[in-house]
């Protein structure tokens, strides 16, 4: 299986009040393409930081970070913005929809950056919304949707441009169990049916069971990596 994301000795530090905080400490990690990863670890262990680096929202201090064939350290400013538009989709915890736009318009947003006609944009946004099961809610504003529906719109927006990689930071953190399960099933389906590589940060062990592999992070260091597909028992779902 092709390697989608590769980290070599990636270090990220933050400086605060004269103190240097090593959030990611010479991290080595390789993630396969078309695989659903869960990223777990205690609060402050650097999960969001890692996700942001992989998504090109921030730069590492040192080390090498390859996503697909791209070395993210070589990209900056608007080149990095364009890379994000073409290669990754984000889903955040608080459903980051723009409140003034309808569901369809929110999903159309990233498509504005692609060379598409208005009609193509609309069609592609509708297709994405159908895929997440919200064909009947396209003209609703975010405040007219439930939490789970909002998060599904956010997922539709993340896949609208058909990126290879989906990055989700605690996408079910604000949802109740059954709503969370729907969202997780959706992510699993996107991985299984469309072959998306997914990296999902979560605190919820049950959410992690939807993933193929679970990466454990602790104080900026890599812990163990569990493979749900080979493990036996309740962890495995198919």
């Amino acid at each position: 299986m092709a390697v989608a994301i590769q980290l070599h000795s990636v270090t990220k530090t933050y400086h605060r009040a004269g103190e240097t905080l090593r959030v990611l400490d010479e991290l080595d990690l390789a993630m396969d393409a078309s695989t659903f990863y869960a990223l777990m670890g205690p609060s402050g262990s650097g999960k969001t930081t890692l996700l942001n680096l992989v998504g090109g929202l921030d730069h590492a201090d040192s080390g090498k970070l390859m996503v697909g064939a791209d070395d993210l350290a070589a990209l900056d400013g608007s080149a990095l913005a364009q890379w994000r538009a073409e290669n990754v989709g984000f889903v955040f915890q608080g459903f980051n929809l723009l409140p003034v736009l309808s569901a369809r318009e929110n999903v159309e947003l990233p498509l504005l950056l692609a060379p598409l006609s208005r009609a193509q944009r609309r069609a592609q946004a509708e297709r994405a919304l159908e895929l997440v099961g919200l064909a009947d809610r396209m003209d609703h504003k975010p405040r007219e949707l439930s939490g789970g529906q909002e998060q599904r719109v956010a997922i539709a927006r993340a896949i609208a441009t058909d990126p290879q990689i989906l990055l989700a930071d605690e996408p079910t953190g604000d949802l109740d169990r059954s709503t969370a399960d729907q969202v997780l099933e959706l992510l699993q389906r996107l991985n299984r049916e469309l072959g998306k590589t997914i990296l999902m940060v979560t605190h919820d062990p049950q959410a992690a069971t939807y993933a193929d592999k679970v990466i454990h992070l602790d104080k900026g260091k890599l812990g163990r990596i569990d493979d749900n597909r080979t493990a036996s028992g309740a962890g495995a779902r198919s």
Partner: protein
Amino acid sequence: MPFKLLWRNVTGHPIRSLLTIASVAVAVFLICMLHAVTSGLTRTLSAAASNRLLVQSAVSLFVDLPLSYQQKMAPVPGVEAICKWQWFGGRYEQDKGGFFAQFGIDPETFLPSYPEMSIVDGDYDEFRKRRTACVVGADLADKYGWKVGDTVPITGTIFTRTDGQPWQFDVAAVYRSSSASIDQQTMWFHFDYLHESLETGGAIGPQGVGVYMLRIAPGTDPIGVQQAVDALFENGPQRVQTTTEAEFNRQFVSMLGDVPSLLQMVGGAVLFAIFFAVLNTMIMAGRERTRDLGVLKALGFTDRTTALLLIAESLLVCGLGAALGLLLGVVLEGPFAAATASFIPGFGFDRGTLLLGAGLALAVGLISGLVPGLRAARLTTVAALREVG
């Protein structure tokens, strides 16, 4: 550029947007009005003719000169014609609240000295021949519905008739003026009619001449004439001050204080107030959208686009305000000009006024948008999402 998002951001806060648009509109309207007043005054000043001098008392415009001065000035080389002017200060019976100027003048030399005036109705000869006749401005005739042949009663406030009746002036002609040096709302009558009434005891009031207008012959140096006339009366009985028409107008306007600078200061203050109001609103709007901006950047929108989004929003709000303010100004320009024509000569919008109003509003919009716009450009997604949690 996601225009729909831009528009929705503006309409998403309808009250705030409308208030901002309204305050920009009011400011633009005010600034245009103030500019129209100052440029009207300036136009009047600059429209002055260079071949007309005015002789007034060296003490003050309100002190009359003796009648005998006319004969003494007539032989001064370069003086082609002399016209007496006397401020009448009467009130039109039918319009107690309204006001317009009346002057007693010399019909023989008046019209030939003011080629910017043309008779549009009636006959100037008729005016010359009839002692009680008058010439009125076209705007004045329109306003009060006067026609040639009408008799207009004017109550004197400086010159009162001993029979207790108002003065009666017969409208013999209606004029229009092509220059701001003469407005369209003045009544001209015979100086001699006023003078004779005072002589024969038919009326009481000060005897004398307010101002002598000297028309100088082509090719004559006005400064030479000025000096010669001033020298003539150096030893009394009344010293005079001879000025060009431009200088005279300037003094007349500045009797009201330095109106143009005052108005400019008021306009500047209005502009400042509105600038801070718009700036404050835009900074608030920018802060509110911190998370939205972070999301847009995560989706791949560039720093520039997110900055432009806020700048364009500010420009849009200020542009709408400017359009509304200019519309208001253009609609009210006519009525305002009509209502103030007698004391704000030359009031009117020109292209400069409209450009000034629109330009200032857009400048306010641009700067107010730049402040949150630059912040948006510098903001990172990581910080934006962390900030709001």
